[in-house]
């Protein structure tokens, strides 16, 4: 098994593991990922936020790599040494990428349904600057409907290509894709075609930003006012394992369950997502795990008992 060292922590990983996956195995200093999605073939490499510095190529060929590499698409070699947060060059480049991602982003978080669970928001919070140096008009698109359940806010899109990969890999009839070129590329169906497929709703779950949102949930609440609960049902199409998002007694939306990297644990079908919004449809398992740092966890049940400071507050 190849041995790789990331930010001075060494780990043995199976051959073919990427640097990013190796970092996830270590669990610390994991490079962020906006376009990479472990469950989608061919994803990654595009957003460039996961760039890292390879200071030693391998035991066999110890030369450093000349440029920063996308950790999500670079396989580890035995003896490889990688710098992520310990490299000022990486931090600088990442800051640059975040700035580029925000250049044309509308920053309309106050009216965006994704706010509170948006990866771009997290990323900007961590790496972004308080002020933009971009002084020009942002590119704008009209909002579009992709079918009757999904809203496309192209202005917010960062062109991660995940949704087209979902459409390509989970569904048999691909009707949407990336149109145009360069700065004005857009996700679109070209001639307003509905995506009529039982798994199309997963495009919402894989979208790292608020470009694709669930129309049945649109403007109903802020995510941090809702309570996520794990539940399941017997479904013939998917695993039926979901997260229900409650406000009071009402199920406002249904999504797949997310793992600690924000990826769906299993893709769910549209019936579970859109048509089963009564508690009686589900067997409730219990509160969903929400990262303590997430805004969603505020006022909620998963008590941060390990922190003495907060404990004090609670008393």
């Amino acid at each position, binding site marked *: 098994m190849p041995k790789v060292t990331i930010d001075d922590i060494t780990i043995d990983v199976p051959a073919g593991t990427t640097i990013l996956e190796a970092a996830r195995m270590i669990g610390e200093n994991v490079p962020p990922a906006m376009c990479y999605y472990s469950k989608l073939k061919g994803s990654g490499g595009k957003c460039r936020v996961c760039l890292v510095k390879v200071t030693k190529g391998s035991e066999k060929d110890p030369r450093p790599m000349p440029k920063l590499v996308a950790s999500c698409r670079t396989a580890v070699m035995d003896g490889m040494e990688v710098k992520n947060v310990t490299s000022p060059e990486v931090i600088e480049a990442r800051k640059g990428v975040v700035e580029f991602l925000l250049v044309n982003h509308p920053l309309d978080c106050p009216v965006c349904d994704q706010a509170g669970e948006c990866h771009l928001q997290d990323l900007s919070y961590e790496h972004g600057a308080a002020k933009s140096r971009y002084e020009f008009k942002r590119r704008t698109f009209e909002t579009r409907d992709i079918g009757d359940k999904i809203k496309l806010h192209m202005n917010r899109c960062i062109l991660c290509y995940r949704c087209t990969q979902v459409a390509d890999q989970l569904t048999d*009839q691909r009707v*949407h*894709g*990336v*149109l*145009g*070129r360069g700065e004005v590329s857009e996700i*679109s169906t*070209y001639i307003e075609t509905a995506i009529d497929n039982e798994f199309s709703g997963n495009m919402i779950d894989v979208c790292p930003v608020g470009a694709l949102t669930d129309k049945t949930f649109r403007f109903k609440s802020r995510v941090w006012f809702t309570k996520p609960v794990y539940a399941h049902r017997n479904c013939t199409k998917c695993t039926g394992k979901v997260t229900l998002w409650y406000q009071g007694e009402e199920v406002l939306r249904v999504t797949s369950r997310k793992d600690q990297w924000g990826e769906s644990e299993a893709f769910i079908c549209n019936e579970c997502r859109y048509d089963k919004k009564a508690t009686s449809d589900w067997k409730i398992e219990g509160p969903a795990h929400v990262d303590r740092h997430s805004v969603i966890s505020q006022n909620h049940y998963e008590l941060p008992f390990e922190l003495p400071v907060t404990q004090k507050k609670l008393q």
Partner: protein
Amino acid sequence: MTEVQKIEFSPEAMLEVSRIVSHYPQDKMKSALLPVLHIAQNEFGGWLSAETMDYVARLLHIHPIEVYEVATFYSMYNTKPVGKILIEVCQTGPCCLNGAEKIVSYIEKKLNIKVGETTKDNMFTLKTVECLGACGYAPMFQIGETFYEHLTEEKVDMILENLKQEKLKAINN
């Protein structure tokens, strides 16, 4: 184009399509997409309508979106109607050193349109494009498959007039 045209290749175009398709392995028909779109654009009025693209998708057994993705990526495909004569003036560095910008504004004035527009009689569309590989023979423009190089205002007058007469003749016949 005002009259509704039936979207179907002429027998000659069809022959050309099958010749092109034969260049690629049988299960790689999609590879023929770019050359077939060129033929489609020539056949159906110089641009690619949604119907045309759907037709090409059917011919090559691919999803329509795969055609849209490609047609909107490459700058030579027009996804909006253009005039009968499409003038594409190179506006990149070396051409500009030799007066390409003056040629553009001359044509704008002459035809009374701006870049990207079509004349009222639907005869000319003016477009600026990036480097066409004629830097040593600047300034230049491309109309159809022909490169017109070492342009001067007089030359532009002559070329456009000749092409216009040709088109009118073709229409009247």
